């Protein structure tokens, strides 16, 4: 089963992607997934534990390469890239947000946000300034010099989001970003993602929770490494970009 949200301006294309772990028995973590995410779309991925959500996310995020099939990000075929080129692509086109925040414990909030800039452009004079602007944007303008341990869970995730935005990526990948947060904080974080999406950033978000998935335009349901169903929620949100995406989705729905 495939899923295609837009053929004209796609941020991510996956074609019959497979990822198998060879243990005592081969584990087909991702078993023939095709999907295509339009630029500016907001997609949630749901599915039971072990259904391959994180594996798919890593493949889309260039952290992993498929055993079979093809993944293309911003028009570049991931399988053809070298290790370092993939690192570069991650640094420039993709922002990651993880369930466990994954900040550098010894660096301050501001330093965590500058980290992707440091790897991207060694002679960037005003990255401190941009880090401050990003942290202000996620509501942490007064926590620049705090270490992760000096921040609450929600604040840490905001820092992680600010870091994901450091190099102005076109795609943000979030693997259960609210999994460790209470529902109130969850809503705040999700509002940030919606805001980002409204500005045109493509978002792919893994979640267990229906209420989180409902922030997205559409939901991809995974089961045993395959797409089981694609749910279209586009009309739920009356946002400006909705038109284009919704239009694109109409075509897709028939395909589902």
């Amino acid at each position, binding site marked *: 089963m495939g899923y295609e949200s837009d053929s004209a301006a796609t941020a991510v294309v996956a074609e019959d992607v497979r990822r198998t772990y060879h243990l005592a028995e081969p584990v087909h973590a991702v078993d023939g997934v095709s999907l295509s995410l339009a630029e500016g779309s907001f997609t949630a991925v749901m599915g039971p534990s072990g259904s391959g959500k994180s594996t798919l996310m890593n493949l889309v995020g260039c952290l992993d390469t498929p055993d079979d099939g093809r993944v293309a990000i911003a028009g570049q075929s991931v399988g053809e890239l070298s290790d370092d080129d993939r690192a570069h692509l991650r640094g420039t086109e993709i922002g*990651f947000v993880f369930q466990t925040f994954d900040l550098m414990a010894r660096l301050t909030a501001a330093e965590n946000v500058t980290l992707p800039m*440091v790897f991207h452009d060694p002679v960037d004079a005003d990255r401190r300034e941009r880090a401050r602007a990003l942290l202000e944007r996620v509501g942490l303008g007064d926590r620049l010099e705090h270490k992760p341990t000096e921040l609450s869970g929600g604040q840490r995730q905001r820092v992680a989001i600010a870091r994901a935005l450091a190099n102005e990526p076109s795609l943000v990948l979030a693997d259960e970003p609210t999994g460790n947060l209470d529902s109130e904080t969850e809503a705040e974080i999700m509002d940030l993602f919606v805001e980002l999406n409204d500005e045109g950033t493509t978002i792919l978000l893994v979640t267990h929770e229906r209420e989180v998935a409902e922030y997205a335009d559409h939901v991809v349901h995974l089961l045993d490494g395959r797409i089981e169903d694609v749910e279209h929620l586009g009309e739920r949100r009356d946002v400006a970009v909705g038109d284009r995406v919704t239009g694109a989705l109409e075509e897709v729905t028939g395909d589902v």
Partner: protein
Amino acid sequence: MNFLESIRIGWRSIGSHKLRSTLTTLGVIIGVAAVITFMVLGSGFTASIIGDIEADQEPVMMVQTQTVPEDGFGIMTVDSPIYTESDIAELEELDGVEFVAPEGGLDVVQAGTDDEQVTGVIDVQATTADAFEFSTFVDGETFDGPDEAVVNEQASQAFEANLSAGDELTLTFEDGETETVTVAGVVESELGDQTPPTVYVPAEPYYTTTIGTPDGDEERAYPFLQVGAEDLDAVDPVQEDVTEYVEDESHAAELKQDGDEIEVQTVEDAIEQFSDIVDQLTLFIGAVAGIALVVGSIGIANIMIVSVTERTREIGIMKAVGARRRDVMQLFLVESVILGVIGALVGVALGLAAGYAGVTLLEWPMAYPLEWIAIAIVVGVSVGVVSGLYPAWRAARVDPIEALRHE
């Protein structure tokens, strides 16, 4: 990735493990400190001996016999009396030679004043007044006549009531005979503190050692000669002439043992030979200290490997946000180089301090072995690079997904 940035991040992670980092660098600290300490002590020792000599150089040279011992290494001075009266007379005739003063030991077992006896430690040498031509007297003057003697400062201080000009000194010879001489002067020692306490008496009449010359005569012969040139400019030509004569034409050339070597050494030559020996010794000790450095770098490598494992997750994060292999490699290398350099710097400081304490205690002059300090720092950097290479390489190869799954 920017170099300064990696230094900042490396420094941060070192700072967050202060105790561990300190212990890690201990090996390098000890190694470097040991090398620097020995270098300071070595140069101090050398300077304590040759410093004074160089200050007021004299146009004199020593003629002596040396041999390379069969077992053991280095050079030994032989004290067989082979320089005859005829040799001395011939040498005195050479152009530019001011004087030739023989020197030979006497078998004296005890030296004493009316109040005090000193047994064993005092060396008694027979010579001529010329030997003191360039010496500095702290008291009195050179001897002039058979019943006078000159003592050096060490000999003077060997007596509780320091000997001074005018004191009576009774020498007891091995065969039981005694002679009483008057101290004419106290002379400053040329080789500084290292000179043994010595009493100098006139060769005439006390020196009686004779040898059968190649000409068939029986003549007095001495184990050492001191040759004085007219001035410093004359030293080099005189050294050449003296060498030529003693090696080819003198009685000594025929009387010396096979394998023995006649040496004509100016003060400068002596200094050189001496520093060579000290240098070799210091180098040897330095090499031993170098082992500590090897141990030190193994320590750094070990802790860096532990640190790579510990920080696997961090490496995963860095890779996820765009770090390339060489960025990760650089981070870890910089960290181990910082450790190495800190070790070297602290080691240098500690070594200088220990060396300073040592030379102060021994009353030697302080020296700053600049080239060794430079070497120590270079070694610190290299130890950091070498011991960090493998861990950094491992870090660079970490798979980001595995790393992010890592607890």
